């Protein structure tokens, strides 16, 4: 049953050194505030999973907290490279970054398998690609009915999944709408679930396109208005494209990034 907690306490309780953490949200509803709290608390040696690492993981990688990245597309959407991700992969700065690299379809199905309590999922994917040579989480299975060989991907079961949603009720039932990506699957695949929300309301009136996570499938809810910025929460904010562009200059250089990091860690109210 989800308790309504402060973000600081919820992160400290639920996310630990060495955990596999998924912070999901497909461009929309990316839980930046929670990631910044992880940086402030210095929770480290993380394996981070996310279809699109986006600048949220560029920041965690640059902060030196990430040992391994599980992903399928690592760019700054609409802008260009993730420079901290590239620097870690190409130069090992500030630490080497192991990769478990997939296609979007593969990552999505890895979460589906995790949410479904299955050890693997089947898809028509990866054929002819060099990707399977680099990972031990892609294999093949043979259909017992047709004999056809298909790709199998191992279930992805994070220790913790963190997502941002529009709102929750006081019991901790969560409601989100708009592009809801792979968040339900990532949450249900995880051992623990932390949700930051724009607001808590007395009653979750039904919304078109809403995905609801019952309170008993969530471990903690933290109220963080604007907690997806510079991503957005449909109905509450719009994507801050200027911040995404500005990140390019911050992240391109180790010194400017380090200054950004120090400012974030120095000020508890930094974001």
């Amino acid at each position, binding site marked *: 049953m989800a308790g309504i907690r402060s973000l600081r306490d919820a992160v400290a309780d639920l996310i630990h050194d060495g955990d596999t953490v998924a912070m999901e949200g497909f461009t929309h509803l990316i839980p930046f505030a929670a990631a910044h709290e992880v940086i402030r608390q210095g929770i480290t040696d993380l394996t981070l999973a996310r279809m699109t690492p986006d600048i949220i993981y560029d920041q965690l990688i640059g902060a030196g907290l990430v040992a391994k990245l599980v992903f399928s597309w690592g760019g700054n959407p*609409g802008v260009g490279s993730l420079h901290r991700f590239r620097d870690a992969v190409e130069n090992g700065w500030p630490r080497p970054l192991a990769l478990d690299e997939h296609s979007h379809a593969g990552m999505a199905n890895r979460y589906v398998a995790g949410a479904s309590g299955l050890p693997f999922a089947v898809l*028509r994917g990866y054929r002819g690609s060099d990707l399977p040579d680099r990972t031990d989480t892609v294999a093949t299975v043979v259909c017992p009915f047709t004999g056809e060989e298909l790709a199998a991907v191992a279930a992805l079961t994070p220790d913790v999944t963190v997502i941002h949603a529009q709102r929750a009720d006081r019991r901790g039932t969560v409601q989100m709408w708009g592009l809801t990506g792979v968040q339900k699957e990532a949450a249900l695949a995880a051992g623990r679930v932390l949700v930051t929300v724009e607001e808590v309301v007395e009653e979750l009136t039904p919304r078109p396109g809403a995905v609801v996570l019952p309170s008993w499938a969530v471990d903690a809810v933290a109220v963080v208005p604007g907690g997806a910025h510079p991503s957005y929460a*449909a109905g509450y904010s719009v994507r801050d494209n200027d911040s995404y562009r500005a990140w390019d200059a911050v992240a391109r250089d180790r010194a400017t990034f380090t200054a950004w990091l120090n400012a974030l860690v120095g000020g508890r109210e930094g974001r």
Partner: protein
Amino acid sequence: MSVPSAGQADRSPVTPDELMEVNAARALAGARTCFVGIGLPSTAANLARRTVNPDLVLIYESGALGAKPTRLPLSIGDGELADTADAVVSVPEIFNYWLQGGRVDVGFLGAAQVDRFANINTTEVDNGPGRPRGRLPGAGGAPEIAANCGRVLVVLRHSPRNLVRRLDFVTTLGHGGGPADRARLGMRGRGPVAVITDLGVLRPDPETAELVLTALHPGVTADRVRAATGWRLRAAPTVSVTAPPTDGELARLRALKAAGRDGPGDDAGPGGPRGT
């Protein structure tokens, strides 16, 4: 549709990128559904909805089915994609039921590197001895888009660095090493049917599946294309010249891109070219 000569109504000359974008849009004539990567593919698909194919159904991997954006989306997850869609579904559903289910006619991909069999690299490039391999964004939706759409269009700028004899990494299978490879691997779609660049159009030779020059944009010579291609590019028996953009195409393309000036959007995002 009449095809007047270009530039009559618009004073600025047509750019090579515009030739690429207009011809990419034209390639969507007759398609019912298109799986759209952000960047050049999205520009072309949105232009097609304003020109050759008003009913084209745009499918974005973020979950928007039938999105009808009023301006170019900057990211794959722009709010307007959801707001204007016929339906918004989960990302697993987009890939499993709609793409893998065989419901998409055309997959439209960008690329960092394309080889002569239209295989695609968006993962990493070899920067030469002693230098670390250059990291690209990765696969995104491309491997399964190329596998499961009815046919695939690839759009990228022409240079010897982009169109290469051999990929540094095969992210996404085009035609493998020849015409039988897709069938051997059980791929359902036809794979890449055209690579549309700022110089012209390459298509796989029906016999060998190797990309050959089939069309030049107005004013471009075959020699110039060969010089910009990393393998010894052959020409099809007939090489046509693409029709110049019409006034309408150009006006709509420029209006689209002007409205989208809030951000780049041409060179990044899943399926887009190298993210640098």
